[in-house]
């Protein structure tokens, strides 16, 4: 048997269907960790069959060591093993079958643990709950493997059929559907429109089994979503070690990181901690231990409150910030309302001194370009490069005050504060390229970065990150690109894309962030810029002959020969400034410089394979993104 004939290509899916359908950051982490864990179980099984994992390089991987009961030190915090890997074995088909069986049995064990702890005692109050549970648990995963060249796996992906389907097709899901994973039935089995009380009673009981805030009153989940949600509390029994899901910050917390950092490093620290003490005495279950230590490496009280308590808008809503004695429905008693007002006053006082926290955070997804071809051509050298990159990822994300959710193979998923997110993505792209250069190869990574209001459902944010990475960055703009989208509560505000080369200055600064910083340092400039940015967009739309603007649209101005677009935009800029500043020679000079920068980020910069193919294409969204970043996302 040749070496190629002994190769196993193995994948577990659905990735987006499992990870992306999340309501909380904890679901997001839990989904990515579980998928990584199951992939690790498949790898462990292949190694047990005397096989060898070729890609990725798993030597020294902490998660795999713990799965193989060989772990030392602290248990792994995040998933580090990709859902797809290449291995070799003497009996490759036998090893692959064992690996698939290994995944099924470990998944079953986790599902059983959740069932026993949270559902078994309530199941007889449901309608066919056990049947629904088993149907979903047994039919969820898509485990595919091929033997031989990697092309076989590419071909296998074209035929979405699973050997695991009990009925020879995907399941039929009756009744009401899960509030997180809408393709699946919720496990009470009742239909809300006609059996509301029975359904509510069932879920009330499940909620009683869980502690604190694990399930919200409007959450009715399928087996898969419930397993993801409750997995951390059964982890010791199900996988053999404890995981600390409570250390995962909410999106609102991530958004507030720069503000928290500024407050705690300032003279207002004691005031802030006093506010926290007051909040802890007025409300229950609002302490988020471990979060601050993970992000800031310190344990101030102020850094450990539920992030809703950093926002006066949330404090004004008793549902978001219930205090002791806040009723589930109806008005709060007078003394509770007074305490609430006291907290609001304290927080407003802090706002007066240190400004407001941003309600926006960034979700970053990155993925290596053309990895299939690289692995086919250079095999284990790619593994070494990826292993070197993986070592760098957590440090780069932490340096930018972010939280790494997943880093395995060529994939990265992280949450970051708005201000540092683009720089972080760029630094990671540099680290990726350097890791490959060290192995004598050229490789690029692309990014999908979403700046989202905490009000936008996490599921929508994940879908946007996925779509802009695959469709806008990689497919439309070409490999080695970063696509950025801003999602506000009212919908998509803007969408921008550029190659890495087009996004940074010769000094390796992300140009958009620099332009935004310049703007935010001139309060008058921001004032003027609002009208300038919107007017410029309208002007470009009119010149292009298009009727309607939509986010991400490139205007083709190639037919307007002789048009000096820079002079036009500069005149608009000066016109906008006229109301607040005297137009001196210096102002003209700085306007010229500024508009040059804006134009450079607005022009189309395609990835390396498309270079030179563009016409005179301009996207107004570059300017809108500068405006958004300059406001640090404080205004929704």
């Amino acid at each position, binding site marked *: 048997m040749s070496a190629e004939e002994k190769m196993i290509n193995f994948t577990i899916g659905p990735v987006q269907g499992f990870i992306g359908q999340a309501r909380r950051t904890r679901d997001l982490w839990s989904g990515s960790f579980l998928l990584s864990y199951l992939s690790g179980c498949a790898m462990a099984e292949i190694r047990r069959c005397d096989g060898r994992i070729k890609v990725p390089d798993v030597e020294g991987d902490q998660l795999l060591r713990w799965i193989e009961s060989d772990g030392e030190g602290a248990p792994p915090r995040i998933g580090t093993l990709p859902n797809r890997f290449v291995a070799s074995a003497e009996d490759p088909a036998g090893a692959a079958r064992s690996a698939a069986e290994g995944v099924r049995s470990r998944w079953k064990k986790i599902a059983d643990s959740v069932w026993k702890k949270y559902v078994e005692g309530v199941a007889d109050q449901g309608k066919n709950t056990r049947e629904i549970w088993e149907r979903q648990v047994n039919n969820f995963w898509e485990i595919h493997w091929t033997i031989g060249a990697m092309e076989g796996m590419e071909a296998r992906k074209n035929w979405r059929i699973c050997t695991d389907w009990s009925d*020879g097709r995907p399941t039929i899901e009756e009744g009401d559907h899960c509030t997180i994973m809408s393709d699946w039935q919720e496990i009470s089995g009742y239909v*809300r*429109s006609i059996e509301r009380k029975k359904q509510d009673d069932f879920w009330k009981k499940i909620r009683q089994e869980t502690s604190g805030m694990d399930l919200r009153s409007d959450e009715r989940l399928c087996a898969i979503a419930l397993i993801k949600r409750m997995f951390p509390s059964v982890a010791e029994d199900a996988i053999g070690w404890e995981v600390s899901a409570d250390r995962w910050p909410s999106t609102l917390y991530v958004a507030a990181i720069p503000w928290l950092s500024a407050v705690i490093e300032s003279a207002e620290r004691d005031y802030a901690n006093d506010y926290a003490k007051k909040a802890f005495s007025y409300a229950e279950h609002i302490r988020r231990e471990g979060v601050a230590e993970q992000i800031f490496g310190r344990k101030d009280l102020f850094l450990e409150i539920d992030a809703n308590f950093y926002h006066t808008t949330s404090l004004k809503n008793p549902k978001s910030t219930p205090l002791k004695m806040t009723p589930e429905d109806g008005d709060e008693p007078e003394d509770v309302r007074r305490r609430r007002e006291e907290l609001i006053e304290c927080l407003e006082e802090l706002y007066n001194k240190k400004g407001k926290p941003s309600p926006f955070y960034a979700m970053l997804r990155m993925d290596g370009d053309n990895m*299939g071809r690289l692995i086919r051509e250079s095999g284990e050298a790619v593994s070494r490069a990826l292993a070197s990159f993986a070592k760098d990822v957590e440090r780069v994300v932490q340096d930018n005050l972010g939280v790494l959710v997943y880093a395995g193979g060529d994939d990265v998923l992280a949450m970051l504060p708005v201000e540092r997110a683009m720089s972080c993505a760029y630094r990671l792209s540099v680290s990726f390229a350097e890791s490959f250069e060290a192995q004598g190869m050229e490789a690029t990574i692309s990014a999908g970065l979403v700046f989202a209001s905490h009000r936008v459902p996490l599921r929508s944010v994940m879908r946007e990150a996925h779509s802009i990475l695959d469709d806008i960055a990689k497919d*439309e703009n070409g490999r080695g690109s970063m696509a950025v989208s801003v999602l506000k509560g*009212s919908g998509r505000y803007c969408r921008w894309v550029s190659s890495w080369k087009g996004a940074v200055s010769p000094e390796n600064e992300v140009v958009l962030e620099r332009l935004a910083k310049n703007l935010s340092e001139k309060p008058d400039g921001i004032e003027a810029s609002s009208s300038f940015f919107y007017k410029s967009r309208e002007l470009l739309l009119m010149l292009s002959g298009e009727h309607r603007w939509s986010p991400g649209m490139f205007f083709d101005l190639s037919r307007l020969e002789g048009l000096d677009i820079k002079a036009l935009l500069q005149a608009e800029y000066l016109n906008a400034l006229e109301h607040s500043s005297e137009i001196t020679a210096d102002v003209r000079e700085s306007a010229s410089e500024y508009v040059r920068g804006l134009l450079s980020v607005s022009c189309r910069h395609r990835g390396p394979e498309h270079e030179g*193919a563009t016409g005179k294409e301009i996207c107004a969204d570059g300017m809108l993104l500068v405006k958004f970043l300059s406001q640090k996302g404080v205004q929704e």
Partner: protein
Amino acid sequence: MYLRITPVDSWFFRDGRPFHLGEATSDVGGLFPPSAFTVVGAIRAHLARSMGWREGKWSEEICRVLGDGYDLAGLRFRGPLLCREGDRGPEMLYPAPLNLLGKRNDSGYEMRLLRPGEEVECDLGRVRLPTAEKIDGMKQLSGYVNGDQLKQVLRGEVPEGRVIPRKELCGTEYAVGLERERDTRTAKEAHLYSINRIRLVRGVHLIMGIEGIDEGLLEKLDGAVMPIGGEGRMGCVEMLSPGKGVSEIRQEIGPIDGRVRFTLVHITPAFLGRWPRPGESIPGVPGEVVSACVGRALRIGGWDSVNRRPVELKPFIPPGSVWFCEAEADELNDVMSVSRIGEYTGFGFGEIALGIW
């Protein structure tokens, strides 16, 4: 007879996400084209109204003409499909077959067609998986092809021109709905929802075929403005003149070495009780499956307004999916007679085009 349905404004077709009054619901919908159940439901409801129905259960007379639920009485539907007004009149569009791969280059897309390759050992057994040479970096093209391009694919040729991306036909609009507190004029708690509406590009329509309908009743549809999909959003219906509409797309198939090798390309979603595995047969189709390009299940459900409960969410084979099959030469006529497969074909589901590989 074919009906052309044009949106008055945007449309809203919900997916399986729960949508209950009194609970905050976000990011619902965006399913397009809508399922045949939705379009047929809108047409039948309009016809029932024209026969005097206002609310509640239909009368016996209406049920005799229009059927009820899954019973269509004598009605038969086809579609829905998309159509775009072009320089040469209306152009029917079909979901791009999933055996068509492409990669963007400077002049558009470079494309290749997959067909069954050498046997590969995999979790399905030893199987001829769909493949082709020089497909590095290529992926399945989600979008639409016109009739001529589909015919080329059915002949086993790479189509000329380019696949029409979905964004050239329709866009998604995010919309927020709320109920206001009368006193504070703020959004009422748990009464805030967000949905994704579909806006068709000017000149793009839905086309639905209808048969078995009384001439007089059919006239009630021409020029009608009827609610379709969620939120009571409206569509204008026009009858297309005879000869306009969906022309038959067929590829002549002949036996080679005593065997007939053919492809089935799904034009509309299909529900099969069991998705065939390699070596198995498709119900109602002679021969056996050699290979396939089949996408992830499209889950279609709905709302049963009479019984006030959700309709079960069923997995449909998505349009564009392709089966590569082989039959005996003497089964050729039976192969050529296949035009729809699976269940609910009267609604328009399960329509296929035959080709060769």
